[in-house]
């Protein structure tokens, strides 16, 4: 009896530990204890209880695409497939792609119906595998370490874009706005409006209408006091303004449509046209909408690049163009070293596991996302394990990823898993910037453009310094200003005193 029980236990154990091939040879309680398994690698048998059914993930189709529509299934549950048989056809904007099976086996379950949107990196079908599974194939099956269905994948399937807003109008608007809560879309027109509107009107009529309506009133050149408010508390709504504008137009003499137009130049007026969001923009939209819940605080300081540049020049002196080092790998490495001292900035904020008790999942590895500009827009490939990279290998990796970004060939594995992000907007321009954190990360740093500035030396003499502004944003729900400041100071210290980085490198 006991032996039967232990045999059953062995069988159960073997079913659970499928991914770990080492366990197969360990699981030898198949037919009897005395007879070892003839083929320890085979995990299945004629008896159905030992079949391995695994979710088969929708592989990356490139181009930063995170989801695509299932057009047609070529299989049904129960269908037998061989390696390379087509399973289904999917479509994303202009590309229709045939997904083929990498294994022989039997389809057990379809995760989508025709016309549904299938997500890249998520299970497409369950397949009962009856062929060899190579290491490469493991990655396509769920259960691999990378495809953790943990907080990352569930919340952000492919956090590939982190927006960089050069002017955060939100914080300005919230400070000035005494009116009822305003939706974010209305912010961009605000700063210009606030400047030109007289201060008196703002204070007096702040409760009469939302900023969007006030902007409209200004556009129509009306006086808000003239308009009857039909909204809550006698507030003026958009419809009120339009109605008033309509009647006012009839009454007064023809007001020129845009009185501020200069003397007629033969310029062709550009018409409005609808522009659909590109896949990159759509992903950015989803991601940044999530980031709205993060209270950002901004911390900037200027880092003196002079010492680093001298060292770089010396290093690059006899190197070919592809081997030359830019400041970026130095900055990334300095960030990683500082994150070792302040690990809370390299964490993921988990508010979903336990709704009442948010917790920080401090990440052991530094996977730093580097925001870069590509022909299809902003992409953020991730350099994995920066803590184990040298500056040289970092440079090579960054360069490899940017080539893939330019070609539109970044895979979803390249764009997921970031624990911290760095935006090198300085390659285009910028001084102090206010980068937006990509949930569930808790911090981000934006690097401005390095400029030559005059400064004072030790004896008060005028010296030339090369300065660059670093702008840190952190999630004020879990990071306080002091910690962010200390980490920023650490980075600055490493970059201004390269030798201190040197002695810390492993």
């Amino acid at each position, binding site marked *: 009896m006991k032996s039967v029980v232990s045999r059953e236990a062995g069988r159960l154990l073997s079913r659970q530990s499928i991914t770990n091939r080492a366990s197969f040879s360990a699981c030898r309680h198949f037919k009897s204890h005395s007879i070892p398994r003839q083929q320890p690698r085979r995990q299945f048998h004629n008896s159905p209880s030992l079949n391995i059914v695994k979710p088969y993930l929708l592989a990356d*189709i490139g*181009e930063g695409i995170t989801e695509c*529509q299932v*057009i*047609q299934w070529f299989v049904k549950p129960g269908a037998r497939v061989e390696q*390379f048989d*087509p399973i289904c*056809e999917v*479509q*994303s*904007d*202009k*590309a*229709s*792609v*045939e997904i*083929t099976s990498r294994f022989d086996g039997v389809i057990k379950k379809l995760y989508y119906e*025709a*016309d549904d949107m299938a997500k890249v990196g998520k299970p497409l079908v369950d397949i009962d595998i009856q062929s060899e599974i190579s290491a490469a194939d493991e990655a396509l099956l769920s259960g691999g370490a990378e495809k953790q269905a943990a907080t990352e994948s569930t919340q952000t399937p492919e956090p590939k874009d982190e927006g960089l807003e050069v002017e955060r109008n939100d914080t300005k608007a919230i400070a000035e706005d005494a009116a009822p809560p305003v939706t974010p879309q209305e912010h961009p027109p605000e700063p210009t409006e606030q400047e030109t509107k007289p201060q008196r009107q703002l204070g007096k009529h702040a409760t009469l209408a939302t900023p969007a309506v006030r902007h409209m009133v200004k556009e129509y050149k009306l006086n808000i006091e003239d308009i009857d408010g039909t909204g809550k508390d006698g507030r003026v709504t958009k419809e009120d303004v339009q109605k008033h504008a309509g009647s006012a137009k009839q009454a007064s003499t023809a007001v020129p449509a845009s009185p501020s137009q200069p003397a007629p130049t033969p310029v*062709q007026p*550009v018409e409005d*046209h609808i522009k*659909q969001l*590109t896949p990159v923009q759509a992903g950015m939209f989803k991601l940044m909408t999530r980031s709205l819940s993060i209270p950002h605080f901004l911390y900037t300081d200027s880092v003196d690049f002079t010492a680093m540049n001298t060292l770089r020049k010396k290093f690059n002196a006899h190197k070919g163009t592809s081997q030359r080092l830019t400041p970026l790998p130095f900055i990334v490495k300095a960030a990683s070293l500082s994150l070792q001292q302040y690990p809370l900035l390299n964490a993921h904020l988990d508010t979903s596991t336990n709704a009442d008790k948010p917790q920080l999942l401090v990440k052991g590895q530094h996977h730093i996302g580097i925001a870069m500009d590509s*022909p*299809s827009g902003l992409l953020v490939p991730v350099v994995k394990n920066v803590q184990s990279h040298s500056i040289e290998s970092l440079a090579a990796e960054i360069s490899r990823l940017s080539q893939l970004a330019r*070609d*539109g*060939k970044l895979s979803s594995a390249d764009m997921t898993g970031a624990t911290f992000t760095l935006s090198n907007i300085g390659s285009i321009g910028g001084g102090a910037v206010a980068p937006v954190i990509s949930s569930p990360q808790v911090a981000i740093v934006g690097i401005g453009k390095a400029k030559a500035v005059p400064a004072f030396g030790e004896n008060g003499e005028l010296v030339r310094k090369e300065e660059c502004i670093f702008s840190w944003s952190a999630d004020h729900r879990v990071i306080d200003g002091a910690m962010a400041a200390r980490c920023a100071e650490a980075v600055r210290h490493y970059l201004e005193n390269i030798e201190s980085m040197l002695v810390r490198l492993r």
Partner: protein
Amino acid sequence: MAPSRGLLRLRQLSAASCRYGSIASGRRAASSFAQHLTNPSAKLQSYISRSRDPFLNLSIEDYVLRHSPPDSVVLFLYTNRPCVVIGRNQNPWLEVNLGILKVAPEQGSSFSNPELPAIGDVDLVRRRSGGGAVFHDEGNVNWSITCPRADFTRDKHAEMVVRALRRLGIERARVNERHDIVLDQGHERRTSDPSDTHRTAYTGDEGAQPRPLKVSGSAYKLTRGRALHHATTLLASPNLHIIPQYLHAPAKKFIEAKGVESVSSPVGNIGLENDIFQQRLQEEFATMYGARDTPPVVRTVGEAELDIPEIRKGYEELRTKEWLLSQTPQFRLKVDKSDLDGWSHELNVLLDINIHHGVIKSVDYSDFLYGTDREAQIRFALVGKKLQDIGDWHDFFRGREGTEALAECLTRWLPIPDTPGA
């Protein structure tokens, strides 16, 4: 052997011999195409079609995708007779003005338009790759490149075509961010790197300039190891001004659909002759793949290729009603009387139809004259029917009282086009 087949063979024989001065039977020509295509040592291949049949050209293209050697790169050029080609997953009722495709108005329809564009019959074609709806005619040259999937990027071959165009003096051509080819319309000339295929001297800032004209639209199909990139090229279409009529469906605002919507752009002609462009493109193709001095021989393909069973099978499939109409993902046609301004009140209807893959799933209907009295009857008649099986709506509803208004609406918004096949 049936007499008609013999005639066909005879025609192919004489056609082949007049053109090539050699006596090649239709069958031999076809199998030689298959032989050449699948030859593993033919790494670089170039074909051109003499057929204007869009169904045949697409089938040959698909055959190239599936049967060319895995490491080969194949260029295929073809031109179609007037047709509207929609993407794999698109909705013809949403994208195409189906009512004007055939010259003869539908029998019995009160809707006859004396202003139909006078270019004759226009085919409806659904291709196997993704993307949006386009109009083909003899002034438009289609090019397709099949290459290994690992080497595929969306811009690569679009850039090749831009280089070919620039060499022919079209300096305003560039690849835009959607991987299409456009002609910049700006007036200001600035400096620009001539080898940059994504900018021209006339490229302005985003939004500030007159919009560029689209001259080529791309679509892709990816299989396990191969990638197909094909695109149109508007060289000298005489029909530019009427293309918008074909690509604007009357039911557009009444349809909610899943599936890819077309992105419409203003189009323009490049202004080149087909032969000159084709030749230059073939040369550019050879140069790009390092065979400038020994370019691949350009082989002609055509109707003879229908003898290859896979091509014949694909050809027939593209022409079926099932493929053309019932491959449409689920959509809903919803009309409310408030949408129908300007119509006579007899046609005031409330219509809500759900259609999944060509099958009518649900119908809600009420009209001015009968209210919802006829709704149950109409439901009974329609639900479960396949759209492709319905010919003419007036015929379908003949004999059922009170359905004239509905038949009229459906003819206008959900016309069932003729298809060449079953």
